[in-house]
């Protein structure tokens, strides 16, 4: 008996492979699915080229960042319905402040909006920890509050931004073009840094710890309340990044967009990206293609000749299927052990 358990602790080649598959298999699979879909799309569209790629990457940027925001919070054991509202609020605030300003000034404004949003959402996290009211209730409230503030900041669609700022997110001073690189590079760098922080540092790992087993984390000397507030702050920062991307793409702000739909998209994206809604499991790297797929699904289906309502049905079925696959994998693993 002892011999068996000793052997199980030393890892053979096969076990290393299986472990890699278990830890990164989902990430790998979602990337593969994304690239497969792009390849399939290119056969559907005769004129497929850099314009289509740029369109996917650039217009997918807000949903990717919003999904990362949601992922950080869900991994730490929470859920934030307010991220969509925060996206709208930061987008219209930036549009209003940036109108007619030079590139340098818009950069300063962007940094200000980023930190203000992080602070604001940290406050939401703080309210959750002191009130002991479930995350889903408090953030449902914050969704409407953010949306309301956004409407008072910018009652009618408008505002503006600098050309340089538009280039940063779209590779074009007019917000439309064939250059996917600035957005791709920004997503890569920002998400890689965030993923490194969450996977390799003590403060980042604390998020996984609290989401995985709050009691064990507490016994290990982790302060769960602080970790929760940090997760909401980081999530707020990413929601602001999504909002800024939105402003850069549209060149203006629009507070009549309802943030709740965006929130639901972010939840759908993290589910597809393999983040467990129960917390503690998930990779930010997998959230990138998941967000892009979600954005990209309706153009594909349109190209295939499916009408828009059909696209929504397929999106819904896809999310349920993904959840069922996750459950099946977990069930098989438990049966094996």
């Amino acid at each position, binding site marked *: 008996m002892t011999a068996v358990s000793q052997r199980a602790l030393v890892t053979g080649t096969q076990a290393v492979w299986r472990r890699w598959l278990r830890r990164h298999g989902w990430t790998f699979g979602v990337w593969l699915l994304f690239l497969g879909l792009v390849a399939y799309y290119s056969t559907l569209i005769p004129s497929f080229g850099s314009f289509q790629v740029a369109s996917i990457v650039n217009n997918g940027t807000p949903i990717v960042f919003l999904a990362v925001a949601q992922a950080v919070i869900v991994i730490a054991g929470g859920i934030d319905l307010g991220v969509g509202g925060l996206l709208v609020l930061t987008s219209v605030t930036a549009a209003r402040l940036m109108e007619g300003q030079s590139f340098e000034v818009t950069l300063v404004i962007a940094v200000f909006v980023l930190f203000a949003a992080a602070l604001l959402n940290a406050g939401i996290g703080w309210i959750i920890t002191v009130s002991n009211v479930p995350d889903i209730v408090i953030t449902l409230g914050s969704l409407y509050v953010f949306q309301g503030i956004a409407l008072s900041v910018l009652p009618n669609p408008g505002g503006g931004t600098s050309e340089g700022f538009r280039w940063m997110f779209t590779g074009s001073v007019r917000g439309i073009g064939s250059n996917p690189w600035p957005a791709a590079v920004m997503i890569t760098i920002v998400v890689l840094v965030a993923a490194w922080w969450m996977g390799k540092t003590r403060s980042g790992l604390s998020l996984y710890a609290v989401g995985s087993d709050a009691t064990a984390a507490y016994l*290990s000397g982790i302060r769960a309340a602080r970790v929760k507030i940090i997760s909401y702050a980081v999530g707020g920062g990413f929601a602001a990044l999504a909002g800024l991307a939105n402003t850069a793409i549209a060149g203006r702000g629009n507070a009549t967009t309802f943030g709740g739909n965006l929130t639901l998209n972010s939840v759908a994206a993290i589910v597809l990206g393999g983040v467990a809604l129960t917390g503690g499991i998930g990779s930010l790297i997998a959230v990138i293609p998941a967000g892009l797929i979600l954005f990209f699904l309706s153009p594909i289906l349109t190209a295939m000749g499916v009408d828009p309502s059909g696209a929504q049905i397929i999106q819904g079925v896809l999310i349920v299927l993904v959840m069922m696959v996750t459950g099946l994998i977990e069930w098989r693993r438990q049966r094996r052990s």
Partner: protein
Amino acid sequence: MTEPSPSLLAADGIAKRYGPVVALRSADLTVGVGEIHALLGANGAGKSTLVKILSAVIPSDSGTIAVHGQRAALRKPADSMAAGIATVFQDPALIPDLSLAQNLRISRLDKDDVLPWLERMNLGHIDFELQVSDVPLAVLRLLDLARALARDPQLLMLDEITAALTTDQAEYVFDVMREWRDRGRSVLFISHRLGEVLDLCDQATILRNGTDVAHLALEGVDEAELVTAMLGEQLVEELVEAVASPTATSPSAPTVTSEAGQPVVLAARDVHLRDKVNGVSFELRRGEILGLTALEGQGQDELFQLLSGDHRPSAGELLVNGERLHARSPYDAIKKGLVLVPADRQSALLPQRSVRENLSTPLYNRASRWFSLADDEKARVDRAVARLDIDVRAGSQVQRLSGGNQQKVTIGRWLAAGFDTLLCFDPTRGIDIQTKSQIYDLLKEVAAEGAAVFLYTSELREIPLVCDRVLVMYAGRIVHEQAAATATEEMLLTAAHDLDEASA
């Protein structure tokens, strides 16, 4: 002993209550420098609560803690660690979804900090990239210990660390404990295995009902003395009097023989569940009250989950009236007449609904009863209320009833629904003595009417009062069986510790 030796830790008058339940009344504990100190007591004496308070996992209601003579305010686990206390808790404090290396990182430790200790425990080759949920429980305990040692604490607290370990693994732990003492540090050791305690420990503090009742130097003390100290001299006369009601007429010995001819209603044949239940067999006959007792965590919880249809055995079989039980959920077990009164009353009841509604819930199982009950069923609910002597006036919400009355409702549900076999898991925990005796009477009545009762209890003194026969469980096995009438607390406690005298 009166000479003031330098004390490392002095806890004074520690008290803690959870609502109406008193976990610690007033406990004193003094651990000297360079000693292995045992903290002993029966189930529910307050050992784990005291450890959690000293680790600052839960706050105490009153009392003071001093470390090296300095009063320490321990508010969060980090304070306790900073004061030089490291704890290995009963449940592993490792994050299941992270790798071992990641777990060390969140504890601000490095592989190299724990490796020397792991090598001592024959775990030097362990792969730190393993995910915690894939590592066997015993190894996790040792990892937890290595992690605690790496913090280089003045006081190492070990709560039931050996319970999950094999003999050779336990030896590693003992070596480490002795070395810790030789370094002039101290260990607080909690174990149900009294042999280990006598081998290792220098001093002992014994808790009973939340109070420290004895402080002993362990040299020259034997196991029997420890058992006596844990149980106390307190007599059970009041209890005997309360229970000696006219309904309990026939002495136990003849009852056993009269049941021998009755059909077996529930039988377990070499039943296993993972590594928790390791080959349990027994037979329960009509009209019999079969007792079961064990120390905490010996597989009794899992055995009751099996019997109530919550899990299926991984090996072996359960027979109900001679037919194999294929339960996918408790629903299937209940259909076969096998009903459970669980340990946690709150989870068994609908706390915000009335007594009557709670009593009728099992009757709503049939689709034809979704809207209203038949008249005879209403009458059955009425009879159950009358029989249980529940005060229905305060019963608009079950959560407002006292614990004892709530327990009566959990039993009463099945009286209204009807059953063949009643499984009771520690039904009298935290209940006043009068209600206890009513519950005893009730169990005897249902048995006299032809039902079978399987009763797990952590209160040993209940067994001769209620049961016909008693089983004792240890490490997932039945290690002892005897007629309940002749069972004394000493015999049962000795058997529950799996000491040799029991089987001899």
